[in-house]
């Protein structure tokens, strides 16, 4: 249990320390060290859960089971690798005069603050605290989106603040309704919002109220997942903020928001006894997927391009969780992992590409492989992975989701296949001129640490070729929790 407290205390302490000293030259290293230590603690939590089963803290404030423990480890890992990337990147930004000492303090402090809210949202057992942490994540990142103070970035921050704020307010209303339903069954008032108590009492909850609550919760957390039509904030916030922010927003925040939706669905399904929650998620997921793949084609900004790709993939995951059943759930869990690893490495590479070209506009980024082979190949391989090319993990998870859809809803499979094809075209028509072709004279290589990218892409490749036994077992346990049955038959 101590490891769980450490994963929360470390980023919180880091946020406070960096808030005071985050402008020093050593702050980038401190950021890396704190993130690394957090990752170490999360690995210890994972080992505990893997060995001893779910952990429930003394006051029942924190609950870690197979479902959230892998997200805790993934969040800490991506936070760590992105911190490694962030150090030289932000030094470059300071040298270019785009941020001053005060904003560096803010940046570093809020980087750790954001990781703290994410880890709190994942590990808490209380649905109210989950909401507080999700709102806290918005608050921590608003000022980072407007870090450069350009009119565009301020506009993006405003949109992000208002849209996510209003969206997540719906989730609070849903939480109140859920509490209202639970208070009639669970008599200890302080326990009526605990996920473990709600899950145990779910079949006895009043269906009408719970159904209404789920609609509000889906709309609320769905805004943060980036589901269409509530996605407008996402491309703006991703493209205008500093690149390490885009990497952790896309790789972590979206996952954690989806986690919240699925956690709630686990309570709602037994309470309703109907597939309403799944159908709603399928509808929203499919809509997001289809709209996002079309928008991929008309992007002119490299970070906007990949943020639409994030909407596409979040839509696909939401759809898969909605389909339900062991196969689709297993696919969705795997997809959460590989998408998070791939997308954060793509944003890191895109950040380097933007530094090389001196702009984020796709039409001015040319000949990356000639200029700096590591960055060019990184972008090419990352994009190939996210588009679902065979040896990579994204292919495996998409294949699982497609098979599950074929089984349960055959007539939806063509839509998914066409969508994936359109997305492939949308990504590669922009990618091709960026990585190949002649090097413009003005371009020169920049200092880039491609090691985190290489490690993450190698992990994605590994997950595509052979999922290690313990990880497969882990996903299977989570599948059992969510879908009620295992896929591999390992038992739990």
């Amino acid at each position, binding site marked *: 249990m101590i490891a769980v407290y450490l994963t929360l205390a470390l980023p919180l302490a880091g946020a406070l320390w960096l808030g005071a000293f985050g402008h020093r030259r050593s702050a980038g290293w401190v950021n890396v060290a704190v993130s690394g230590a957090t990752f170490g603690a999360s690995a210890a939590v994972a080992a505990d859960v893997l060995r001893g089963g779910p952990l429930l803290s003394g006051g029942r404030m924190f609950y870690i089971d197979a479902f959230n423990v892998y997200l805790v480890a993934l969040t800490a890992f991506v936070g760590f690798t992105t911190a490694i990337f962030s150090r030289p990147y932000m030094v470059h930004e300071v040298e270019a005069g785009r941020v001053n000492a005060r904003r560096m303090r803010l940046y570093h402090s809020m980087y750790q603050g954001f990781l703290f809210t994410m880890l709190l949202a994942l590990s808490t057992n*209380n649905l*109210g*605290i989950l*909401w*507080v942490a999700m*709102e*806290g994540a918005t*608050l921590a990142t*608003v*000022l980072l989106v*407007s870090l450069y*103070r*350009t*009119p*565009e970035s*301020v*506009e*993006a*921050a*405003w*949109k992000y*603040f*208002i849209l996510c*704020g*209003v969206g997540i*307010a*719906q989730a*609070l*209303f849903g*939480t*109140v*309704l859920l*509490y*209202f339903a639970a*208070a*009639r069954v669970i008599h200890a*008032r*302080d326990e*009526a*919002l605990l996920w473990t108590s709600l899950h145990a009492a779910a079949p006895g909850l*009043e269906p*009408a*109220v719970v*159904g*209404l609550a789920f609609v509000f919760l889906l709309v609320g957390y769905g805004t943060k997942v980036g589901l269409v039509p509530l996605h407008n904030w996402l*491309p*703006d916030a991703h*493209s*205008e903020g500093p690149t390490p922010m885009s990497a952790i927003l896309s790789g972590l925040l979206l996952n954690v928001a989806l986690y919240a939706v699925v956690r709630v669905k686990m309570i709602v399904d037994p309470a309703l006894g109907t597939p309403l929650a799944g159908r709603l998620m399928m509808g929203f997921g499919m809509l997001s997927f289809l709209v996002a793949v079309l*928008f991929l084609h*008309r992007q*002119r900004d490299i970070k906007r391009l990949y943020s639409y790709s994030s909407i596409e993939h979040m839509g696909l995951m939401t759809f898969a969780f909605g389909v339900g059943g062991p196969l689709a759930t297993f696919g969705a869990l795997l997809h959460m992992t590989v998408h998070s690893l791939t997308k954060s490495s793509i944003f890191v590479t895109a950040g380097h590409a933007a530094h090389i070209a001196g702009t984020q506009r796709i039409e001015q980024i040319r000949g990356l492989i000639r200029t700096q082979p590591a960055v060019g190949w990184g972008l090419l391989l990352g994009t190939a992975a996210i588009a679902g090319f065979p040896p990579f993990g994204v292919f495996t998870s998409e294949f699982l989701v497609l098979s599950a859809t074929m089984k349960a809803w055959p007539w939806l499979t063509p839509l998914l296949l066409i969508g994936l094809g359109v997305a492939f075209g949308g990504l590669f028509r922009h990618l091709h001129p960026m990585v190949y072709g002649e090097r413009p004279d003005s371009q020169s290589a920049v200092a880039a640490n491609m090691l985190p990218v290489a490690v993450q892409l190698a992990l994605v490749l590994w997950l595509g070729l052979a999922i290690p036994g313990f990880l497969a077992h882990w996903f299977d346990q989570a599948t059992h929790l969510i879908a009620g049955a295992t896929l591999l038959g390992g038992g739990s």
Partner: protein
Amino acid sequence: MNALQGLDLTRQLILLLAALVLFSSFAMLAQSRLVGLVRVFAWQGVLLAVTTGLVAYASGHTHLYASAVLTFFLKGLLIPWILHRMVLRLGLESARESDAYRTPVQLAGAGLVVFSYYVALPVVQLSALFTRNTIAVSLAVVLLGMLLMISRHKAVSQVVGFMSIENGLFFAAVVATYGMPMVVELGVAFDVLVAAILFGVVFLQIRASIDTLDVDRLNRLSESEP
């Protein structure tokens, strides 16, 4: 009418306060001066605190007294004061929103109230007139806050709309469920306070970058850029 007489005095008073909270939302929709808008918002916070105190008295949940005091200071005094100071600092004392569409907006607001009652219908199976009314009213306050945000062009008005959505949620929590557990309530209050301060910061950034607080002018980021 009989249903109303069946309620005890405190419940009737709470229903009266619910109606007043709803009325204050309509008053915000009608108010076109920013200073006036912030003042109505402060009154809504005070009404909320009174309701919380009354519910605490009627139900015997002593922790609600603490949230009543917290609400009074946070939503009745501190946040309105922050907003008021922003309005003065940005030189918007005499700024008005345009009066166009005021009648349609009020009518749309009435429509939203009817819609809220419709949405709250399933809850009637659970409990009597009392809860149905209060849940419907709190949902209506949330939706009216959204309507305020949509129909206004000044950033300050949108923030008031945002905060009044939060008021609606708090009202729902207090009246329907006697408040959330204390740790959650404190967390939410903390978030709201931080949000109010951050809004102030973002106001200054917007003004510094586009020299106005008309959010209509925030239109650089779109899919149809050249």
